[in-house]
């Protein structure tokens, strides 16, 4: 009997001396692998145009129907995305989403991906329906801001920042923290001549004159 207990205790003591594997979250963050399926991100091209063309394949592929896409026609003078079609509304119900990644697989333009952000709790249901402006990456320099703030903008910060149309909460968060200057915002970035200085994320293009 004592032998068994001694053996067990010896093993336990051995474990006590080894390095703990626990992580001091949230101070310490676990790095996410590249395929991590966290909260969705809507991407842009380098010139600021949205990759999303509003084709709704993501909505069709979604097994739980948590994606709503309302498309509209691009105004050729001020396109939101390349081509004829763009997503006027893009909403994901994050409460219903099961993070299966089918939307990202379905997307023909790689506009939607599931990102590294996984801390999605919030106190209000309404805020868990992510709108297009919540999901769109800031323009330009999303990767940079991501590196500075790997957690992304929390939902609680989003409220403080207010929802300026077309400004991702991520940008607002960084402005507040002063972590990343948004040099490109408000004035045409290099190589962006001819484009609208700021691409509106939610806009109704004027009806084109037929004929």
């Amino acid at each position, binding site marked *: *009997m004592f032998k*068994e207990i001694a*053996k*067990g205790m010896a*093993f*336990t003591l051995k*474990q006590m001396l080894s390095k703990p*594997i626990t992580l001091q979250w949230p101070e310490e963050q676990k790095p*996410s*692998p*590249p*395929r*991590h*399926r966290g909260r969705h991100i809507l991407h842009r091209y380098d010139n600021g145009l949205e990759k999303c063309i509003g084709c709704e*394949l993501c909505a*069709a*592929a979604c*097994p739980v129907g948590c994606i709503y896409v309302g498309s509209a026609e691009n105004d050729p003078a001020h396109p939101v995305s390349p081509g004829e079609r763009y997503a006027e509304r893009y909403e994901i119900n994050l409460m219903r989403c*099961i*993070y*299966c*990644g*089918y939307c990202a*697989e*379905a997307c*023909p333009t*790689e506009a939607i991906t*599931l990102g590294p952000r996984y801390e999605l709790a919030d106190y209000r249901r309404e805020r868990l329906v992510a709108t297009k402006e919540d999901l769109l990456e800031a323009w330009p320099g999303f990767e940079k801001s991501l590196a500075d703030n790997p957690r992304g903008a929390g939902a609680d910060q989003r409220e403080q920042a207010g929802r300026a149309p077309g400004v991702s909460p991520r940008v607002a968060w960084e402005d507040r923290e002063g972590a990343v200057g948004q040099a490109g915002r408000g004035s045409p970035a290099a190589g962006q001549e001819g484009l609208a200085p700021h691409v509106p994320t939610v806009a109704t293009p004027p009806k084109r004159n037929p004929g």
Partner: protein
Amino acid sequence: MTAALPPATPPPTGEPDEYARARETLGVPSHLEAIELTQIDDDTMELNMGPMHPSTHGVLRLVVNLDGEVVREMRPDIGFLHTGFERSFESHTYQQCIPFTDRMDYLAPPINNLGFSLAVEKLLGIEVPLRGQYIRVIMAELARIGSHLIWFGTHALDLGATTPFLYAWREREKILDINELVSGVRMMTSFIRVGGLMADVPDEFSPMVEDVIHTYPGFIDDYELLITKNPIWLERTRGTGVISVEDALSYGVSGPTLRGSGVPYDLRKAQPYSSYDHFEFDVPIGSHGDVYDRYLVRMQEMRESVRIIKQAFENLPDGPVNTLDRKVALPPRNEINTSMESLIHHFKLVTEGFRTPRGHVYAAVESPRGELGFYLVSDGSNRPYRCKVRAPSFSNLCALPYMCRGELIADVVAVIGSIDIVLGDVDR
């Protein structure tokens, strides 16, 4: 045993049954009538265990009829986790069903994915390339180890051993990390798809699997050191919850619970799927059919799983992981932007999915809990007409009252732990 107890005394005559009075005032919904607590005319008592009980491993309610401390009868009440997945399958395309299967037996999602995929692939008559099959095996066996680790930790915890629980979860973390690496999600991986995999494994996969192969046998030794010959453990588990071979077979018990009774029935050997016949491994069996033997079988199974992973990993062939049938598998992403045919196939597969021939198939895999079978009926459309899941947890749970009969109430916890049920799997 009952004979040793004092004779039962009938309730005083003329006194209204207090339960009847309570029923009258509170009202019992008719659907609970079958399971309601009743005062029986002898000195037994009905004990309600669960659905919120830490040792029922989920939302399982057990109505236990006790004669002193001895279990006389037991009625499991299930359905608290009923999700209607089988019904949901009918309104989703085959590929969309995969995430649902994850959530049935949520301790071993890849094996659920695999079972469903095999059924659909059988229906379609397609074969997954060898690399895909081997990676499926690796993921399935990792899931089996992960599931057994949870069983080990919680089972031991139920019987009073706190430390193994923490160790088991620490080791399972590595498996979850592999899940996260290959699929992006730690638990609900949806990694195994109809026609292959979500994607090929990334480069970091190799060192992580090698780590598992090298370290896990040692970890399992450590667990056994702590538990296997522990006198308390032996006392609690030996001779408890015995089920004979005949009874186990007639109850439809499968998996380690059946093998603990001494039946060497393992689907990986009995009807090898996904190239399991390429690997050398043993099917551990017990001889007494008690909790302890089931424990030994599972511990040994983990070692065998490591053995399978080692073989599959070392012989992992090159090549594609998905079926080459473009009418089933999504075309490569780079082709979507250059090939009209690929774009159309992508569009149709994503929005409508493939159609299967009419017919019905049954495909079963060996899940950590036993025979997990998917019976699919297809009407030729792009979604199942009917899907029935033969869930091992359900069949094993059916044998629980039998196993517990005559045991002490405290041992019920041990027996529940030893059949290793997942309520998501029971209720679906």
